[in-house]
């Protein structure tokens, strides 16, 4: 087991957003996290990467245990250096070019020599199909290109797992495809990915596992085939039916 979450809890005041979520990720897994808005999927992802401070629960990552709510800044930074995070609205550094966005974490956080960092940075941008956009600033790129730079930024650090928080939700439909294509390629190469998404095509065809969440809890989880072909829980069936109807 590469990453294991147990009993993850988070409340905002009276509102309990995560009610003890369990989750396990094996190396090479591509897990799609589905669920209606407000089900706590994004909060879960943000708690795992310490962007939000969870109230309780524990995480096992690569032999180290983290007790949520008791993780020092140093431990958080160490965890983040070994993971990647892709945001819904890209969050590229606005004062940096595409290449600088990718190399910043390498040169500044990891003290990698500039030359080597730029070599890795260019390779990562080439991989996401942006070899002609190294020196463009985010304001000069389309949403799809910005999100691909963000994926390259996560990729360049050789992460053990990449977390995706609704990576295509801010994109126009015609730009969604180019981002999904990159993610599919990563999945095929064996990258471990935990993806909060509304893209049913990705969940069905690319991910090997699916987790269905509602009201801050995991309703059902299993292989993509099982969840889509033979969902056990009534709520899962209903959710999938509504999605199908919306598409029709």
């Amino acid at each position, binding site marked *: 087991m590469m990453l294991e979450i147990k009993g993850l809890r988070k409340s905002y005041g009276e509102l309990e957003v995560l009610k003890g979520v369990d989750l396990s990720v094996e190396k090479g897994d591509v897990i799609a996290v589905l669920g209606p808005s407000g089900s706590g999927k994004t909060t879960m992802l943000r708690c795992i*990467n*310490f*962007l939000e401070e969870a109230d309780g629960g524990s995480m096992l990552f690569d032999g180290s245990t983290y007790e949520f709510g008791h993780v020092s*800044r140093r431990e*958080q*930074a160490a965890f*983040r*250096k070994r*993971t*990647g*995070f892709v*945001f819904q*609205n890209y*969050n*590229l*550094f*606005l*004062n*940096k*070019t595409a290449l600088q966005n990718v190399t*910043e*974490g390498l040169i*500044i*956080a*990891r003290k990698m020599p500039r030359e080597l960092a730029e070599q890795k940075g260019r390779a990562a941008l080439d991989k996401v199909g942006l070899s002609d956009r190294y020196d*463009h*600033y*985010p*304001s*000069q790129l389309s949403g799809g290109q910005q999100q691909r730079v963000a994926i390259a*930024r*996560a990729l360049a*650090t050789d992460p053990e797992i990449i977390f995706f928080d609704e990576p295509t939700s801010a994109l126009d439909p015609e730009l969604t495809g180019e981002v999904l294509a990159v993610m599919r390629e990563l999945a095929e190469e064996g990258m471990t990915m935990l993806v909060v998404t509304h893209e049913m095509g990705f969940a069905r065809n690319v991910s090997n596992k699916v987790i269905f969440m509602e009201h801050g809890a995991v309703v059902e989880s299993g292989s993509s085939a099982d969840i889509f072909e033979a969902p056990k829980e009534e709520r899962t069936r209903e959710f999938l039916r509504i999605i199908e109807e919306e598409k029709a």
Partner: protein
Amino acid sequence: MTESRIAEIIIDSFWDILIPGLTVTIPLTAISFAIAMVIAIAVALVQFAGIRGLRQLARFYIWVVRGTPLLVQLFIVFYGLPNAGIRLDPLPAAIIVFSINEGAYCAETIRAALESVPSGQMEAGQCVGMSYMQIIRRIVLPQAMRTAFPTLANSLIAMVKDTSLAANITVTEMFMVTRRIVARTYEPLILYIEVGLIYLLFCTVLTKLQSLGEKRLNARGMARR
């Protein structure tokens, strides 16, 4: 009063006024503004980062400086402090007061600009493993300074004119020199207009530099949000 005499006064006084402008007004402005920027960035960051104790101190500093007249501050430091055993020459006294005064205003400009940087910038920095200080220094502060740039340029232009107040604490800057020439020639109208035009000239140059600076920043993809 003959026209040739007026022309002579204008021409003779022009260099007499311009030279202290170049040797006193501009250095006084430049040095004070540079120190003010250091103060302003420090005071803004202390508040932005919410460092306890220092934050209250920063608010107190801004409250006092913004709530008292610049002229009064000049008088306290130059005429008042000697009673407390601190005797300063006119120019250093002026630099100290202008730096502290301008620092308070610019600190507010920069604090507002820091707060306008989207929180996602900080989060993205954290996610690539950067420390808080690294993110501030390399991501958040540069963006904030870009946002603050026009307002800071405005403050600088205002400061050029405010340095005329230093005449009141015997700094021989442009306005002081003009007053002396007026006392000698009894031509207040043309001479005060003349010195006003020289201030206008300085500020025009700065305005041009501001728009040039903004163009260069925009060309580097840093359009103001």
